């Protein structure tokens, strides 16, 4: 056997302890895994329960005589506290519902305000447009009267043109006759 191998007693102790632990537990498992053990444990718990029951009954009786509260009295008081907590919780949840509905209402109101703002803006725009249109209408009326005048003037000019044409014709006619008048000494 080699003498270079070193021995760690803690390691060996650990390994052996694990083996012992497993062996003891396996043994206990075998020992207790039967109906007799189960029935015996039932007897044990029944006796124990009866003992605790009797003990508690006496304790309650003594506490009653001494006029001191027992755990049961405290438990009754605590149940009132828990009931109050539950009521506060349910009130808080109702407040949530109200908060949520208020939030959604305020959102609705906000959207209505937004729409109203848009409408006001639009109305203002329409008003401005109306003023503009009115002005433009007045301008166009002026323009129309001016146009009428121009039309009248044009008519007048047309008449003048016609007169000028007539005059021109007359002048033309007169021009055609003039050589006869100017040919002095010609036989007639």
């Amino acid at each position, binding site marked *: *056997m080699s*003498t270079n*191998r*070193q*021995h*760690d*007693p*803690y*390691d060996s*102790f*650990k390994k052996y*302890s*694990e083996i012992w*632990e497993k062996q*003891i*537990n396996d043994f*206990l*498992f075998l020992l*207790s*895994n*039967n*109906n007799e*053990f*189960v*029935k015996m*444990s*039932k007897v044990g*718990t*029944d006796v*124990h*329960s009866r003992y*605790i*029951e009797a003990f*508690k009954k006496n304790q309650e009786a003594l506490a009653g005589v001494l006029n001191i509260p027992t*755990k049961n009295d*405290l*438990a009754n008081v*605590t*149940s009132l506290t*828990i009931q109050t*907590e*539950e009521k506060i*919780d349910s009130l808080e*949840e109702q407040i*949530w519902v109200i908060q949520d509905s208020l939030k959604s209402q305020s959102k609705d109101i906000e959207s209505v305000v937004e729409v109203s703002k848009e409408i006001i803006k639009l109305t203002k725009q329409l008003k401005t447009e109306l003023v503009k249109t009115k002005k433009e209408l007045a301008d166009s009326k002026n323009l129309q009267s001016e146009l009428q005048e121009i039309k009248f003037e044009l008519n007048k000019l047309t008449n003048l043109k016609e007169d000028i044409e007539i005059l021109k014709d007359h002048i033309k006619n007169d021009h055609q006759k003039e050589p006869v008048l100017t040919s002095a000494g010609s036989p007639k």
Partner: protein
Amino acid sequence: MAVDTPFKDLIPPLELDYEKEMKRWKHLFQVLNEPEPKIGDTPRTEVWRKNKSVLWHYPAKQKKYGIPLFFVYSLFNKPYILDIAPKASVIEGLTNRGYDVYLLDWGTPGYEDKNIGLDTYIEKYLRTAVKRAIRHSGADEITIVGYCLGGTIAAIYASIAEEPIKNLIVATVPIDFTKYVGPDKWAEGFRNGDINVDRLIDVYGNLPSTYVEAMFRAVSAPIYFSNYTTLLNRAHDARYVDKWRRMNKWTTDQVPFAGEAFRQLANNLFKDNKLAKGELMIGSKHADLKNIKSNLFVISSSNDNLVLEPQSLPIMNLVSSKDKTYKLVEAGHVSLALTGLFAVVVDEWASTRSNPL
């Protein structure tokens, strides 16, 4: 002059490192004498409180997802296993990955809570907490993450929920209670009435935490001391000692189980297996897993010595979800959360289903 013995070659020489030994015993002394470590380093704020239950919010470091995660932990233990230590914390891992995380801490029930049943826990605590988380986050939908019995509660809740649950993630979850890790005769005795918890609950009100611990010990390993020998073996490693102390604090920090809830768990789920059969009633509502239409992710641990894979698997066929995934990870029942691996597994699946921003 040294005397040679015939066993000289059989016993290897002792490894003796004085520095290591000093560290080992110093750390062990600290474990015995120093106060327990403070657990829960991830920043959080309280959102809602009722009775002993608190809804915590762990904000994302840099929010990357629109749908928050809502953790439901078991009623048997305290949920700080999900935030056990920096760098190993499941919650820290998820907030670092960009999720808003909510955690419902059920609290420690007192004698006055003996009448709280599973229906009260689900209808009056879980439902309200989910509503609060949705309102607080401003999200339209939520992802429910249930661990161990918290997974069972989450699945029951999801089957009757009116709230918008987009994803349901359950890890190491018992759904089918016909399978069980403990001795078969105990289960048989329980089912045929030889073991009856009703009377015990009637006299105690709640199931005391020592009984809860004893129950788990009894079904897994009644004699358990290897954790101490492992500590002795590795006590020279300060990081291991710190991890051990945190784990040990959590393991021994059991909570009592509300009496009525334990009665319902024992009779309706364990004895009659009503959840898997689709016969469970929560108040006036029929908690049929068929009603679950959310995306479903089921995680089982291959080395789980408490909830077996066949206990979780049936949920896959019981729900109506179209998008459903099953994953078996190399971990134990607790180590899945203890190592922070759970955060990685959840992120891999949830990242594409949580409305990335």
